[in-house]
């Protein structure tokens, strides 16, 4: 049933929604504008060859991460879903655990672990009685390759999660037919399962690549010159806003490719899901002998390196350097993080509900629809670019307001918005709005619009309809998205770093600043806290998966 009806709209509700979606769309639009209005000359400090290096590095970073997350994500997902081997139940959920690590934390943990002065090399030197760096070869983690491995270790769960869901949802009929035709497990993987799961895999891949494009901490530690790092260098390092903005515009090429890849994946998934309606328990292959051991080891590798090693080492560091970590600085950063993330999550969820509702109950005109669509793009845009996009219109507004006030009242208002906590929350809003709006929209889809129409025809007001009939259905989505947004705000680094008020420290900036000074001990407690909070979404996703699983297995 389409949305070919509209209800008496509440004027206040519409104006607030329009205003909110305008605000959220503004930074994205302002970067679009900059694509065309790049004014005087080329880049101030950077010549074309530097830009080429940024582009090349970013390209190879995405290529490398893409390859590794596909390899790790798809293979583990298929083994866990389609085969039986020791501890398969344990792997089902634990393979998601690396998601708890922001890539910058896993990067600095490994840096400390594998550095010249770190425990591994110290042990090797004392064991083999090498005396200096020249006596042996040890791979350098601080390289493009290192960055690719670090990011892949914590980003493969995106592919794992979506591929696994797709494998679970594939029709038993097609699998049985493929067995009936005499295909081996390997053949049915390539001929049946993989094509069916391809849209989901593409979706997971694009999400993972968006994250690696967004990453700032890892590339900064490893001095890998990606576009994100370039923006930060220009912006903070040399205060060259114009070049930073232009670099951000260039980055949009990557953003667009990933964004459309993701959209295409989602669109296909919807088609595929309607095709396979009959779902029942999947026929699993039981592995014997050496095969089961190999699969066990293959699944253990990403878990071991993506979670267990960094987690245990982080625990060890936190206990050893507890006195360096647990300071008044840490406590205030922790407090800041909590109230900032809490406040942001509440605001973002409220705006999310409003956007979803206006789309549902009001026939919106094209401009508002366009704004809402643009405003849902924020998650695809790297934090560093987004920060640039926020500062441009805000500064423009502040300057105009300042000029006006000086003319009219003789007052100097200056920059009264930028550098406040509100700008930071606004940045989070633009980036994370899709989380609540996506979650709520999909749970509201369970109620066709005709239910609303029926309720209105009985005589319920639209507010009563929302309170009595919609709220019970979106409550779960609301809680889930609140938690997810909260955790993402805690983990978020580039936006926080670029938009925070002067001297305002959160856990993530604290960890980043200590780590970039190579004070890993100091950083460890904060990092451990972030990782522990980061486990929350892993638990949520595990629950969601097992729910959908039980749904299929009972039917």
């Amino acid at each position, binding site marked *: *049933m389409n949305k*070919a009806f509209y209800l008496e709209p509440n004027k206040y509700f519409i104006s607030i929604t329009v205003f909110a979606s305008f605000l959220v769309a503004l930074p994205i639009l302002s970067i679009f504008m900059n694509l065309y209005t790049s004014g005087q000359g080329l880049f101030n400090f950077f010549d074309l060859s530097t830009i080429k290096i940024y582009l090349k590095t970013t390209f190879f970073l995405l290529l490398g991460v893409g390859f590794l997350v596909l390899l790790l994500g798809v293979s583990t997902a298929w083994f866990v879903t389609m085969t039986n081997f020791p501890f398969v139940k344990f792997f089902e959920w634990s393979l998601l655990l690396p998601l708890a690590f922001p890539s910058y934390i896993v990067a600095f943990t490994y840096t400390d672990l594998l550095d010249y002065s770190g425990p591994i090399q110290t042990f090797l030197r004392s064991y083999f009685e090498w005396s200096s760096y020249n006596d042996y070869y040890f791979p350098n983690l601080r390289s493009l390759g290192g960055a690719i491995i670090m990011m892949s270790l914590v980003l493969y769960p995106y592919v794992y999660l979506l591929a696994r869901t797709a494998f679970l949802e594939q029709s038993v009929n097609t699998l049985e037919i493929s067995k009936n035709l005499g295909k081996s497990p390997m053949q049915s993987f390539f001929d049946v399962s993989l094509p069916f799961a391809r849209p989901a895999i593409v979706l997971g891949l694009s999400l993972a690549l968006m994250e690696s494009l967004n990453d700032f901490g890892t590339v900064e530690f490893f001095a890998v010159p990606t576009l994100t790092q370039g923006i930060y260098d220009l912006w903070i390092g040399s205060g060259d806003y114009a070049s930073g903005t232009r670099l951000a515009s260039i980055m949009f090429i990557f953003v667009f490719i990933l964004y459309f890849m993701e959209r295409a994946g989602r669109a296909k998934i919807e088609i595929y899901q309607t095709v396979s309606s009959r779902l029942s328990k999947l026929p699993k292959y039981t592995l014997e002998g050496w095969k089961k051991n190999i699969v066990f080891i293959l699944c253990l590798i990403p878990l071991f390196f993506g979670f267990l090693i960094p987690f245990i080492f982080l625990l060890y560091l936190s206990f050893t350097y507890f006195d360096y970590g647990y300071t008044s600085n840490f406590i205030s950063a922790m407090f800041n993080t909590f109230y900032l993330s809490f406040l942001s999550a509440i605001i973002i969820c409220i705006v999310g509900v409003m956007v979803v509702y206006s789309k549902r109950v009001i026939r919106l005109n094209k401009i508002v629809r366009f704004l809402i669509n643009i405003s849902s793009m924020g998650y695809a845009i790297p934090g560093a670019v987004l920060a640039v996009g926020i500062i441009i219109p805000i500064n423009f507004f502040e300057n105009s307001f300042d000029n006006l006030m000086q003319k009219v009242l003789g007052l100097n208002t200056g920059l009264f918005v930028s550098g406040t906590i509100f700008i930071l929350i606004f940045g989070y809003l633009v980036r994370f709005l899709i989380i609540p709006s996506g979650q709520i929209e999909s749970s509201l889809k*369970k109620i066709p619009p005709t*239910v609303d*129409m*029926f*309720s*209105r025809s009985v*005589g*319920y007001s639209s507010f009563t309809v929302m309170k009595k009939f919609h709220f019970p259905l979106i409550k779960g989505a609301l809680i889930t998205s609140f938690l997810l947004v909260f955790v993402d705000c805690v983990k978020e680094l580039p936006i926080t770093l670029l938009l925070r008020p002067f001297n305002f420290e959160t856990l993530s900036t604290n960890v980043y600043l200590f780590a970039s000074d190579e004070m890993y001990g100091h950083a460890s407690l904060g990092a451990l806290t972030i990782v522990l909070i980061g486990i929350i979404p892993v638990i949520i996703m595990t629950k969601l998966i097992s729910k959908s699983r039980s749904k299929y297995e009972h039917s």
Partner: protein
Amino acid sequence: MNILELKDVKIVNSLFFKTEDITFSVKKGESICIVGPSGCGKTTILRSIAGFVNIVDGEINYNGDLISTSTFHVPPENRRIGMVFQEPSLFPHLTIIQNIQAGLLKYDKNDIEQNKIIYDLISRMNLNNLLTKYPHEVSGGEQQRTALIRSIVSKPNLLLMDEPFSSLDFELREKLCDELKSILAFYNISSIMVTHDQNDAFAFGDRIIVLNKGRIIQNDNPYNVYHKPNTRFVADFIGSGCFIKGNIVSQDQLKTEILTFKLENQFTNLIGSNVDVLIRPDDVIHERKSKIKAVISKKVFKGAEIMYSLKLANTLEILGLFPSHLNFDIGEQIGIKLEVDHLVAFRSLDDYDERVI
């Protein structure tokens, strides 16, 4: 007394499609069916009556009150017109009985009158055993029955139904249609049902409104819509049948390739004109000794009857509906007779040209 009156109502559906000149009324206790091909504006009319779509011209009166004009528009929650949709549209988080109770704006569990109606409807619709189940635990037919009860418990003066039976299988819909009709009669509720299924329309409607391209083509009782279609479009759309060519040779004679019909009325002004004569399958009768011979080219078994495609000598092909015991084989030659009680003929191929005979 008219419960509902639409006068020259015009609705703009989209840039390219308008529903126009909609004028009809519904009497107390009357059941109306709106039929037409998909996309003809049926649902739009229903929604404008319920208040979900604004009209741009004309007026709608309900219970003697003006509820819609181009400028004035009573919101749906103040109209209290019952509505049932194609999909059951139940609240997924409420049980069957809670869904039914949600049909009353203020349900009071101590209200004897309310409960009497609820349980009367539940037992008429045979849902007694399902009351504590959730919508996803019951069948599609049971969901739709719940939705019907939910819209009837408040005893609205008018019930609007948008293809309520379309997702149900044939046997079920006939039964449900019957049940519904007796309930509506018992509570004296008027109703408008939108459907694209003529069987539903014939079984349910006291009156049928045929709609095409946003306009009312015919508004009459089922018998007349079938036997006296006012345009070629209605003749085509309602029931099956085919046209044979004919010529009006004198003021009371119509000559076709098969036989010559005697006209009851005088059609002096039409003498000499070519017309297309509508032959319904039930106009064709088997008669062994008839001079008109036909060859069976196709047959579709329908249980009590068989629909035959009959090829006449001059490559003309017509449909004939015979009782099932007249079982012929394909290729067999039989004798037929035409018994056309209501002669229907059109002058041109234009859909909207009015019937001449």
